[in-house]
């Protein structure tokens, strides 16, 4: 494909759209009101129709004001039906937005002559036409009017988030605390809802009313999985939103080609790109990803199994000869491991040079024996401690010590030894190996 100025403006418009939405979306996600984005982006329709008829123009300002008013109205109606009628929040939201959307459709039909609003355009947007828009000359560049509008929206949202950073943060995480601190949580809520409505209207011509929801929710959700800090989350969400715009545009041009088709809707592919980013975050986010967590679990399991295996080999060395050889079956039986885990455990120990194959079974190397001694020392010190200070009978302390030995560092070992007065033998009469 050849990159043209039109492509540049499409990507810029898409990125501004996505970033404006993502800025506010962070708070929707944190407040657990993501579906409010859905509700508002549907419900603004009558606001648009009324604004058109009242002002007789398609100028931006009346549209944004009309949308913001209906956005706040949606939030208020949802809240009042919820509290007046004890209707569950999401149900009351559903009632309000379907009804307002229907009213909007009827108004648009009734005033069809005045309102040249195409429901299809509102639903799907037309990002492809951005570059064909009338342009304004800014800094020697012919900037499409849509890009100027979106840049304005982005600036407003950025200013909102920066100005009210503390207020938004406190009222999102703890509305009661914010009230006691003198921050009006309700006011912040309605300000946010009004801005969400205005933003979704600003974005309708670009991505349409449904895909606005994707831009509002999906990048912040991905960012939420990647970090635990609000400021980082906001910056990340904007970056991911920009990335969805770029990837969406590239995808719209290239992906259909793989299956022998021409290009497809850029807005649609932006949502798909955002979805792909979310999927990657769900799977591979460092701390919260599904795969990362599974890997972490496997690593932990293997580490525990390796330490247990070292301890087992050390205890076998303590036995009088003839000692039983320790190979995979013996290890599995002693530590209740699966065949794969047992093999992986031993392979890891061999690789790190702690264990070697000695003809009939595995045996400790010098390095391995040092580690093993430390493990067994920790184990037996814990057994002594549990018997002396917890009053547990000696035949009940083994499994507890088995778990505790893995989380005992040298400092803790010294403390344990001090408390138990440097015992030579554990409650079972086994000698406790020296520290080093």
């Amino acid at each position, binding site marked *: 494909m050849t990159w043209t100025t039109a492509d540049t403006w499409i990507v810029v418009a898409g990125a501004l759209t996505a970033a404006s939405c993502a800025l506010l979306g962070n708070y929707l996600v944190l407040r657990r009101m993501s579906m409010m984005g859905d509700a508002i982006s549907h419900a603004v329709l009558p606001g648009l129709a009324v604004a058109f008829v009242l002002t007789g123009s398609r100028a931006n300002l009346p549209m944004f004001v009309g949308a913001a008013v209906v956005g706040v109205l949606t939030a208020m109606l949802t809240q009042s039906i919820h509290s007046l009628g004890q209707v569950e929040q999401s149900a009351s939201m*559903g009632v309000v937005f379907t009804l307002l959307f229907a009213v909007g459709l*009827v108004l648009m039909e009734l005033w069809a002559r005045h309102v040249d609003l195409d429901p299809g355009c509102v639903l799907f947007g037309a990002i492809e036409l951005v570059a064909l828009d009338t342009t304004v000359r800014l800094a020697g560049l012919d900037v499409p009017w849509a890009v100027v509008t979106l840049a304005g929206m982005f600036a407003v949202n950025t200013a909102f988030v920066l100005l009210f950073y503390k207020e938004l943060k406190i009222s999102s995480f703890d509305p009661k605390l914010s009230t006691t601190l003198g921050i009006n949580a309700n006011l912040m809520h309605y300000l946010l809802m009004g801005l969400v409505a205005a933003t979704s209207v600003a974005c309708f011509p670009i991505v349409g009313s449904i895909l606005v929801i994707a831009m509002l929710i999906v990048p912040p959700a991905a960012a939420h999985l990647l970090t635990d800090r609000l400021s980082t989350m906001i910056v990340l969400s904007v970056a991911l939103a920009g990335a969805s715009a770029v990837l969406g545009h590239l995808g719209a041009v290239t992906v259909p080609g793989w299956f022998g088709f021409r290009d497809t809707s850029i807005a649609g592919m932006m*949502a798909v790109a955002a979805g792909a980013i979310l999927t990657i975050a769900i799977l591979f986010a460092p701390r919260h990803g599904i795969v990362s967590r599974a890997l972490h679990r496997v690593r932990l399991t293997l580490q525990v199994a390796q330490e247990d295996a070292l301890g087992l080999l050390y205890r076998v060395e303590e036995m009088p000869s003839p000692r039983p050889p320790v190979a995979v079956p013996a290890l599995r039986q002693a530590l209740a491991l699966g065949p794969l885990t047992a093999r992986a455990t031993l392979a890891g120990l061999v690789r790190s040079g702690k264990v070697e194959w000695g003809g009939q079974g595995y045996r400790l190397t010098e390095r391995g024996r040092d580690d093993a001694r430390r493990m067994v020392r920790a184990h037996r010190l814990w057994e002594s401690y549990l018997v002396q200070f917890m009053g547990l009978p000696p035949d009940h302390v083994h499994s507890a010590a088995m778990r505790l030995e893995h989380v005992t560092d040298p400092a803790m070992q010294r403390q344990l030894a001090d408390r138990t007065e440097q015992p030579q033998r554990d409650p079972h009469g086994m000698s406790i190996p020296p520290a080093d």
Partner: protein
Amino acid sequence: MSCGADRAGLLLTAAVADHLSQALRVLTLRDYNTRVVVVGTILLGVAAGLIGTFMLLRKRALMGDTISHATLPGIGIAFIVMTALGGDGKSLPGLLLGAVLSSAAGIGCMLAIRHGTRLKDDVALGAVLSVFFGLGVAVLGIVQSMSRGNAAGLESFIYGKTASMLARDAAMIAVAAGLVALVCGLLFKEFALVCFDQEFAAAGGWPVLALDAVMVGLVVAVTVIGLQAVGLILVVALLIIPPAAARFWTDRLSRMLLAAAAIGAISGLAGAMLSALLPHLPAGAIIVIVAGAIFSVSLVIGPRRGVFVRLREHLRLRRTVARQHLLRAMYERVEAITAARVGTAAPTAGGDAAAVPRSALLKARSWSQGYLQRLLRRGQRWGLVEPAGPDSYRLTPAGAVEAARVSRNHRLWEMYLITHADVAPSHVDRDADQIEHVLGHEMVAQLEALMASEASRAAVPPSPHAIERDSNTAAPGSSARGSASG
């Protein structure tokens, strides 16, 4: 000129007659087309109302929204696949199968997000809804650029074509409605159990997951069939609004199901007829608006949780509370005056009741002049209070009995709080103030048993704390305000 006016009048009459006959045709369902649309929307309203009720109670009202948006990619892909295989791209069973499969995939993603990550339910719903819809838009974008196959009409899955519903569509809706009614009838008890107490159902060995799957499966069926008949927004609305409206009319699940089905049916009927009368307006939107009107009416006058009923109960309670406060204030004043005058303890109920000046009453609570005036006037109307002179009042015999009862309850509760809840005597007045109005006979009997002591067996026990609101009448050290806790 008169001739012209006559002509105009004639034309007008003809036009009115035309409209009337048109309305009559619609209302009597004489048109085959109108009949199909009315039957179809009624049945859809019934089906959506039934299954929507369970979804509402399961707190999943918006799931239908997500499911319906998630069907779009499946429809587009099914079209592409069927066209690629050389078949008719718009074969309905194929498109519906695609819709079902893709909404199932959407539900799968939703469950994965909800259970596999720290993201919450709302994000799962919103993300699946918008990303699947985006995928659908992208797929439809491909479909439109395809050389083979005529993709026109696929967008009716989003907007619907309520007014031009075919008999085939109505028949499919009828099948879906029959299926929903049958399954809801057969699994009524199980669904109810899952809706109201999931943990109990699971502990009792019911297959909660399978029941949930059946429930969501029915939503998918209604959604997919409703989508191409009436459009996305109407299906979503019919799944949510009638059940939410029905909730105002009854607390019984079986009646709520019937009410939701009826409201759905009425919305469908009235909406379809209205839109037949107003053919230039979108039928789906009209049906939603009718349903919304029914919801609003239910919200206001519904006998179970309606605003009106709750307001009336609230006012009634406030009136009772105000009356009892007035009586107790009168009683306490009388008690104080008598004690100060004679130096003895509490007056007996119905005994010679002293007159209480209004200024003394005003100090009893944080009443404003006007409010106290209104309260006293109401007290006279109830026959509990009567004027005893210029600007002073006394209790009537009936009022004295009631006042003694109220004060007794108040003090019993205070004594209970002091002895059994270890609340300081100076702090019990406010707590008792709230409880005294809701003490029933049984509760009072229990309190009496608990407080088996001289004080509580008295007609009205003395107050366990000082009633210091009026220094003129409350002489310190009078026996009425000694510590007399049981």
